[in-house]
């Protein structure tokens, strides 16, 4: 199994975490998120992002509001809900935990 195939599910699993992080930092719309992600290993496409965002919204972790844009139709700007913030905190802690474990195993 090539290494890229092992990394893909890792990235996929972390994508939700990364998206929550981005939305937590600022109200963003999809094109902003894609741009931010495009420079990282989490580069994502709309085809993946829209369904993921709709899932997060169903789980009441994020919400959006419509904002007028200077070019074209109004855009959806996403933000975290209180629940989303709690979950992000949990995920952050868990991630630190994993890092600590990994660091310990290296010794």
């Amino acid at each position: 199994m090539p290494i890229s195939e092992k990394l893909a599910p890792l990235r996929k699993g972390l994508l939700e975490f990364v998206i929550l992080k981005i939305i937590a930092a600022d109200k963003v719309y999809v094109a902003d998120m894609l741009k931010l992600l495009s420079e990282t290993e989490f580069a994502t496409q709309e085809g993946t992002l829209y369904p993921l965002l709709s899932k997060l919204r169903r789980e009441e972790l994020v919400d959006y509001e419509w904002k007028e844009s200077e070019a074209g139709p109004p855009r959806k700007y996403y933000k975290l809900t209180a629940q989303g913030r709690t979950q992000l905190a949990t995920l952050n802690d868990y991630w630190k935990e994993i890092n600590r474990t990994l660091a310990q195993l290296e010794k």
Partner: protein
Amino acid sequence: MEKVVSINLNGNAFQLEEPGYVALRAYLERAAASLQENPDRAEILADIEQSIAEKCARYLNERKTVITRTEVDAILAEMGPVEAGDSQSATGSQAGAQTRTDAPKRLYQIREGAMLTGVCQGIAAYLNIDVTFVRVAFVILAFATFGAAALIYVVLAFIIPYADTTEEHAAAYGFAATAQGLIEQAKRHSESFRARQEWRRGWHWQQRAWQRHWRRHERRMRAQAPVGGSTPSMPPVPPPIAPPSYVAHAVLGVTTPIFAIVHAAAFVAWAYVLLSMLTTGTIFGWKLPVEIPVWASILILVVLYGMITAPLKALRFIGYEHQYAPYHHSFGALHGVVWLAATALFAWLAYHHIPEVHALIDNLPNAWHRTGTFNVETFLHDLEIDRLFSRQ
């Protein structure tokens, strides 16, 4: 030069080159299919359309008003395949990590590149082998089975549905479920598309003419039905919209020959009874009562035959009514072919295996001779008047 198609993307109008439109439509169909279970399906699709619209707008200015096929391909590659949000099996988001997921494979007839009707193409696609092997196998089988394979081909041509939509093509090849795969497919499609366009236009025109004719005919029939009262039990049928589903088509493909065979059996039996009555005046050894004139017994037989076959006919037409009207023709043709073959077969079997029938047929020339050169006067004389007088 390409034909241009105007489309509406979430409320924004765009003009696309036709092959680009085909690719885009395939992408959106695929997206809609993979979001089938998603409760936010409509919203996600609207978002995606909106996003495509914004990307389209990037390619346009005052002097460029049409989006080319290459640009559509670029936009769709940028969009990436639409994955169901909750699915675990989805591949990595980066392009290149696409795997061939197994779409449900189905047997279809594929018109593209077909020699006859596309049965072999469909089988080849289904088994994932070269179509030439299938064709050669069919020809060899046809010789080995003294033509039975050719008959099977004809039956299959009627039973197996055609792959018309992109989705059906994908199912015919058991095609990768990724949007990228579908785009590739659509591309291949659009190449053969151009060459066939001219022919196709003529064909579509012809088809529309037939459809118009059929609809007119149907309206007339429907307008007449309550007055004539011939089919009072038939409920008003909604106008046919969708082509028959795969299952409905297959069911109709199987039931039509069965009806045809039953119909043929009834016809052969009826013909035997009629002939035997005309030539010997008996039915299965039972002598006709003298007081019934021959013309009346013929009439009774005709009415009886009508009564026996009416339910068969009604069943058949109910099948058609629930299907897309133009398909009527192909199933009608299937019924005709099978009926003819079955009638010939039954007649042959009866002639060789039932002595009474054998004797009757062999006697036919004599009986005919006795009836004399056919003119009404001698016919009536021989059949009826003669007999009536002789019995008085």
